[in-house]
């Protein structure tokens, strides 16, 4: 095999900025309280918008009477389906997640915001704006809406039945018209070679990202040189995607739409839809004044984006010697009405078919439209769901073989040379990654993660794979267990553009459209530029996202910013430097030497992936049913770490969110009405400080030959492994094998009682 054909060579000299734990560029603003977020944007004469949401999961709007509301003093406009432009909206997240579907399949109805049909309890019916929020709220109460309720379906397994109500028209509720398939080898032959076939079913619920800054848009229209201009501030992780969606729906050329975002109070993949901006713009147009539309916490959780729920059936064939001969997975995910989300299935299937060395694999993933709140992208896309199934299942397989779970993984983890088989080169290694065998990784530190993670954790082998069922020495009703899980995550390859301006006084500005949503990308991009320019990173500024000021680039998604935008920044910085070194005069307008880059980083011969192995200890209180995670070690191969302190923080954050996913987070819908039952931070339980143990983070000593200065993806991987690691630890402590999330105290007590009853 030839050497990885990267677009960016690895380090050319000792790092000056890369590898240093410098504080975040915007850190002082954030700790002083001066940082301005989109929620803090106020414009003179600004009105306040509110949305009326459907109480029904599926209904047709028969009649709207807003006359009493419009008569109320201070009410400036009401917008309904009658005001909505005829063009469908191309939601930014649809643009991302629609890939992987079948172009020939019958297309579902296009998405209209403020449609006459509502498709989930919480869908937008109309919106009002007024001089203040209290008046807008009073106005909503005066509006009469008559609905014709329609049959609805919430469960993806029911929604794929032939007679199920159709969510988006078309012949089927399966997004893309058919399932996502990933296959390699011959699964039937693989099962025929197996001495043992283990089957299991796993499920995960809807989960809410619920970033603390809820979605907010401030929209205003003004007259430009040749027509109206739409000027928007919004919480966004992709300003250019928002621009495209809004330009399309309002019939404007993209240059007449400007999207800016200030600091973003986190995203976790969530803030990619353009709906709130669309409604705010519609209100602002009708009222003739700027409008602020801010979601409440409840709206953020119901009308934001959820993690897809999932049901996964998994069959794994193994020989007595512990070799895996076949893996077959069938998965159903509920996606709600508006986002096809087939990319989520592809992510899930990737983990299910690529984490373990196996010649014969098959994944079939149905992403199913449902009359539930919308699922979209949320940190890790489908990977946490797929890994939950895979990594709990492999603990069972190890036990069936009488093998230690770690030893089983060390034997079967995917190796640096990739999956077995022969690759038929067809060009570049595509971003959604082949399931075919025969393609090596650019680097693979999975074994190092397993070995070093186990060492730091103090892993105690279970030679027969059986649970140890340890009791706490002083509180014997408390059971103690250890668990582990490993992970694979593809590195985000996206078309990226960047501009770097190097000034004669030795400063630089990085202009990129990527949004720092709190993950720290601005700081990391500054470090990459500083490294090339041999400047102190404090001398590098990173512009804030503004479609009028920076070049179009990819979404803050897929753990791609360091890898993709970073590669573009490095190239742009090199060009700026080359201009100076050639003795060119600085660009008089920019006041410096300009470098620009547009590229799609990656390799045509190697797969670029990140890896990890997590180890944890739990204490299970059999009296209260509470599970406390008491120790945690997260070992990651994300290539070279650009900013170790921030990287550690990101891993700790992902593990923390994973602990919530494992033990407490479930977004509940009432089966009879489809309405959300716990859309609040009190009833939807996210982890607090006292739920999280000290988390040791270990980074594998890997410098990837393809990634910028050797870096690979980091943002999403940490949330992928905690849930299966914790469930495996609960099994080790209690002997109870949970296969569904979350393991709440109530479910744990129920399981303990059931076991008592059997005895």
């Amino acid at each position, binding site marked *: 095999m030839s050497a990885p054909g990267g677009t960016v060579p690895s380090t050319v000299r000792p790092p000056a900025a890369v590898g240093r*734990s410098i*504080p*975040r560029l*915007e*850190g*002082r*603003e*954030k*700790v*002083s*309280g*001066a*940082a*301005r*977020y989109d*929620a*803090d944007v106020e414009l003179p004469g600004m009105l306040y918008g509110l949305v009326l949401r459907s109480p029904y999961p599926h209904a047709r709007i028969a009649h709207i009477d807003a006359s009493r509301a419009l008569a109320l003093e201070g009410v400036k406009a009401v917008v309904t389906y009658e005001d909505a432009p005829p063009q469908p909206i191309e939601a930014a997240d649809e643009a991302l997640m629609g890939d992987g579907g079948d172009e020939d399949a019958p297309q579902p109805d296009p998405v209209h915001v403020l449609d006459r049909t509502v498709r989930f309890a919480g869908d937008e019916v109309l919106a009002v704006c007024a001089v203040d929020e209290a008046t807008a709220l009073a106005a909503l109460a005066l509006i009469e809406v008559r609905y014709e309720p329609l049959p609805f379906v919430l469960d993806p397994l029911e929604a794929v039945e032939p007679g199920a109500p159709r969510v988006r028209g078309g012949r089927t509720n399966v997004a893309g018209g058919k399932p996502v398939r990933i296959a390699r080898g011959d699964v039937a032959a693989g099962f025929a070679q197996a001495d043992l076939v283990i089957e299991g079913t796993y499920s995960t619920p809807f989960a809410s*990202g*619920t*970033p*603390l*800054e*809820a979605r907010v848009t401030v929209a205003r229209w003004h007259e430009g040189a040749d027509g109206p201009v739409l000027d928007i501030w919004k919480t966004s992780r992709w300003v250019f995607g928002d621009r495209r969606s809004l330009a399309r729906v309002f019939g404007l050329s993209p240059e007449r739409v400007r999207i800016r975002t200030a*600091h*973003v*109070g*986190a995203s*976790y993949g969530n803030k990619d839809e353009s709906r709130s901006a669309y409604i705010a713009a519609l209100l602002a147009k009708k009222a003739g004044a700027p409008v602020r539309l801010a979601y*409440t*916490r409840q709206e953020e959780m119901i009308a934001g984006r959820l993690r897809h729920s999932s049901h996964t059936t998994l069959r794994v064939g193994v020989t007595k010697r512990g070799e895996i001969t076949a893996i077959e997975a069938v998965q159903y995910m509920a996606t709600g009405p508006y986002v096809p989300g087939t990319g989520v299935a592809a992510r899930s299937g990737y983990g299910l078919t690529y984490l373990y060395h196996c010649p014969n694999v098959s994944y079939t993933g149905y992403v199913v439209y449902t009359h539930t709140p919308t699922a979209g992208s949320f940190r890790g896309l489908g990977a946490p769901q797929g890994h939950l199934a895979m990594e709990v299942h492999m603990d069972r397989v190890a036990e069936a073989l009488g093998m230690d779970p770690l030893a089983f993984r060390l034997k079967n983890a995917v190796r640096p040379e990739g999956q077995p088989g022969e690759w038929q080169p067809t060009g570049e290694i595509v971003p959604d990654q082949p399931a075919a065998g025969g393609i090596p990784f650019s680097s693979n530190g999975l074994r190092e993660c397993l070995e070093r993670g186990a060492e730091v954790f103090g892993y105690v082998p279970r030679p027969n794979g059986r649970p140890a069922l340890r009791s706490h020495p002083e509180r014997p009703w408390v059971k103690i267990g250890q668990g582990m899980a490993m992970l694979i995550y593809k590195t985000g390859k996206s078309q990226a553009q960047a501009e770097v301006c190097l000034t004669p006084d030795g400063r630089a500005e990085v202009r990129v459209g990527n949004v720092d*949503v*709190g*993950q*720290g990308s601005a700081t990391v991009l500054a470090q990459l530029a500083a490294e090339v320019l041999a400047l102190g990173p404090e001398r590098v500024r990173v512009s804030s996202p503004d479609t009028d000021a920076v070049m179009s680039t990819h979404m803050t998604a897929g753990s791609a910013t360091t890898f993709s935008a970073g590669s573009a920044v490095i190239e742009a910085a090199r060009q700026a430097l080359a201009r100076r070194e050639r003795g060119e005069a600085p660009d008089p307008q920019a006041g410096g030497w300009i470098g620009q880059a547009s590229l799609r980083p990656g390799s045509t011969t190697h797969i670029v992936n990140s890896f990890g192995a997590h180890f944890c200890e739990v204490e299970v209180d059999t009296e209260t049913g509470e599970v406390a995670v008491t120790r945690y070690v997260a070992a990651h191969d994300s290539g070279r770490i650009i900013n170790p*302190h*921030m990287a*550690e*923080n*990101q891993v*700790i*954050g*992902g*593990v*923390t*969110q994973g602990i919530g996913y494992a033990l407490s987070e479930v977004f509940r819908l009432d089966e009879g009405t489809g309405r959300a039952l716990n859309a*609040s*931070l*009190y009833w939807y339980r*996210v*982890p*607090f*400080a*006292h739920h*999280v143990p*000290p*988390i040791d983070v270990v980074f594998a000593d890997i410098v990837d030959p393809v990634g910028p200065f050797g870096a690979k993806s980091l943002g999403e991987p940490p949330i992928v492994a905690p849930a299966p690691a914790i469930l495996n630890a609960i099994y080790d402590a209690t002997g109870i094998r949970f296969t569904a999330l979350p393991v709440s105290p109530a479910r744990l007590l129920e399981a303990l009682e059931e076991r008592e009853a059997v005895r």
Partner: protein
Amino acid sequence: MHVNGAAHRVRCSPSETLAEVLRRRLGLIGTKIACDRGECGACTVLVDGRAVLSCMTVVSTVAERRIETVEGLSGAGHPVAAPASDQLSPLQEAFLRRDAFQCGYCTPGFLMAAAGLLRAVPHPSRAEVVAALAGNICRCGAYGHIVDAILEAAGGGASGAGRAAGDGEGVEA
């Protein structure tokens, strides 16, 4: 109202929340409203030195009390709505140094909860710090670094923790 050491005359409905008055009428946007119902702690401020949830506090009940916001932690603490001072408190410096946040939206609330703790308990144990944060959500999950930062600020000796620990200087200016 007495906010960050300065007296203010504010015209508002007596039923407005303290959080709304701070943000809208005084322009102190450092105080964040994330749930608006006392579930997340993002709006935490100090009233007479104790951490309270400003979104759950009716402004008329704190008219005569000393209110401190995140803006009051840094530099001279006033005039109100001044841009960020160059002078951060040791607690803020520790948050910056320890990377005790990601998106930063919860940070003012955590800083004020920590400031309230350090007022009462200048040298808390790790368990005391964790307990004092029981009402604050960091959805990015930076708890480990937050706890480390607070302990670092508290362990910085009397002068180091002075500002945050509320020896009467700085915060109350």
